[in-house]
């Protein structure tokens, strides 16, 4: 032990937040639902309530991985005029104990690159007139660099892209490495064999374990697929957090008991935001107390496993 602060125990803030706060609670809300000002207050409430990591959705109009609840949030955020620029301004302003991640679709990352790149974005006023015989390449390669650079500058610790398969992830993985940001991948109940290996070779921070087939949304009970998924992943070193369908403290307890390092809750929180309509303090209070319930559940589940497993030592 050296007296001065040294390199952190973990390579990544995200992994550290999970390991050091084991069992971890990861919360999600959509940025801009119902406004970016409200989001700021809500994120602070999630942080106060005991979230160990906070995912913020950057809204995209074609969210193919989401169920109706989060689609509704995304639509409200888009109607409120949420843009990547506004989103990053919000992140610039936020000061939380919990590291922040952005969850968005690959389109948003590429479009940000298109609009930032010096000559990539164009209206192609000449291109459409090119004749059939003109073999010149009319391709304008979009780039992921500008988005990752801006994310790092704003202080984001990680990125989750539900429609980016590991096979296509090399450019984003490289950019994230350059800027010291984690890239989280989702593992489904159907993911196994070669594809699982490929995902686990690309993932950093944590593996997002999807509890069941289908899209996001709060459900009544915890799936047995969770147990199977966790046992399939037990040989991999990265922390595992389980999401999709977690809405109550008891779910959180059950998932941690099944061997997860963390639980992810989104739709249940988005529901609270939707129920409070225009936002304000009551919504923030309700979020904070829901987060406390969920964190208590996770800890309860962790206590049940302490006989077999020694938890990570607490860091101050």
């Amino acid at each position, binding site marked *: 032990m050296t007296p001065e602060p040294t390199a952190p125990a973990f390579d990544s803030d995200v992994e550290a937040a999970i390991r050091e706060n084991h069992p971890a609670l990861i919360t999600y809300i959509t940025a801009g639902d119902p406004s970016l000002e409200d989001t700021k207050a809500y994120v602070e409430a999630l942080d106060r309530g005991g979230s160990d990591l906070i995912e913020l959705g950057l809204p995209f*109009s*074609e*969210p*193919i*991985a*989401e*169920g*109706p609840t989060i*689609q*509704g949030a995304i*639509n409200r955020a888009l109607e409120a005029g949420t843009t990547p620029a506004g989103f990053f301004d919000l992140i610039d302003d936020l000061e939380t104990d919990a590291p922040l991640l952005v969850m968005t*679709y*690959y*389109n948003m990352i*590429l*479009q940000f690159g*298109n609009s930032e790149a010096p000559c*990539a*974005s164009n*209206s*192609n*006023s000449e*291109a*459409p*007139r*090119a*004749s*059939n*015989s*003109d*073999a*010149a*390449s*009319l*391709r*304008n*390669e*979009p780039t992921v660099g500008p988005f990752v650079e801006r994310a790092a500058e704003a202080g984001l610790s990680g990125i989750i892209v*539900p*429609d*980016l*398969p590991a*096979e*296509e992830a090399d450019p984003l993985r490289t950019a994230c490495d350059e800027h010291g940001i984690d890239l989280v*991948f*989702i*593992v*489904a*109940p*159907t*993911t196994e064999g070669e*594809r699982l290996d490929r*995902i686990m070779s690309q993932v950093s921070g944590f593996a997002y374990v*999807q509890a069941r*087939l*289908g*899209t996001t949304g709060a459900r009544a009970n915890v799936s047995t697929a969770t147990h199977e998924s966790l046992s399939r992943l037990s040989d991999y070193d990265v922390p595992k957090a389980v999401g999709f369908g977690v809405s109550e403290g008891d779910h959180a307890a059950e998932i941690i008991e099944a061997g997860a390092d963390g639980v992810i809750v989104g739709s249940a929180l988005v529901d609270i935001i939707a129920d409070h309509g225009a936002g304000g303090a009551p919504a923030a209070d309700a979020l904070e107390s829901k987060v406390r319930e969920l964190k208590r559940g996770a800890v309860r589940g962790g206590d049940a496993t302490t006989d077999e497993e020694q938890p990570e030592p607490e860091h101050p």
Partner: protein
Amino acid sequence: MSNGTFDGYGGRHVPEPLLEPLEQLAGAYDDIATDDEFQTDLRGLLEAFAGRPTPLYHASNLSERYDAEIYLKREDLLHGGAHKINNALGQALLAKRAGRDRLIAETGAGQHGTATAMVGALLDLETEIYMGKKDVERQEMNVFRMRLMGAEVNEVTRGGEGLADAVDAALEDFAKNVDDTHYLVGSVVGPDPFPRMVRDFQSVIGEEAREQIRERTGELPDAAVACVGGGSNAIGLFHAFREDDVAFYGAEGGGDGADSSKHAAPLANGTDDVIHGMKTRVIDNDVDVHSVSAGLDYPGVGPEHAMFRAVGRCEYQGVTDEEALAAFRELSETEGIIPALESSHAIARAIQLAEDGEHETILVNLSGRGDKDMETAASKFEL
């Protein structure tokens, strides 16, 4: 082509839970669709049920007016009134062979939903159609048609209650029910294998047209023209001519014009991006996707078209609402054929090419009939 890409476009940009089902579907497609018995059965249904082959019609009045030889491939005469049935039959037969007993589909104006309902009834498959609430209200007749043929029409009330929301709802259903359900995608869009599978099922259009025009004129056409929304009728026409010295022209939904903020022309005025599971050309996020024809009203396009554009094989251009409506009227008056508003974009582009005088023989895919567009026509032309 490897990994389901077209020179870098396409691929499978989908959430992880959909990858395994897509892999299975690709495997089933490769095994079953190449099978002689499958091809014989499909051919039989295309003839007896759908009405193939469709005629190649020399539009003599239009040809005379513009001093060119204009030929129309009459997909509008198919059962259901559009080329959609070619693909619906192929995929439904595949689903049946692969042991699926349920079909789902998204639909905008209701044309693809109607085609899916037809084949669902024919092959005795439970059929559920996702359709935005707004579209359900606008397209009542198609909703009645689908229900009459036994399909369940599921009103999608989320989001903007339109086609994109119907796609989301159908994908959600597919992800949950992959074991017994086939998602019958309506165009050459989405993740692999859909773009190549739908292309193969639509290629019958060009294969027939190539034979027919050679029989008729002794040679190949100078140009082939089709409208492009998702792009299935265009790929279907082009594919058989891809190695030939035939110029390709794709007419996109130009909306209010190429420089406006309302169009549906991602090839002519978009950027490389990812949408609905594929890397392709997409309109910019600050453009409102808009076309007078519901079938072209789509922010992306099939990835094979993105490739054709990138390598310069096909020229894509937006045809404005106004130009398309003029062509709609002109073909009705000169030939006694009422084209679909989608196909009217191709007619408009063919007329422009004839006026330019660069090509002598022009083959146009008349992909659908205009009966469904009578209300729009009546309001635009004060009929």
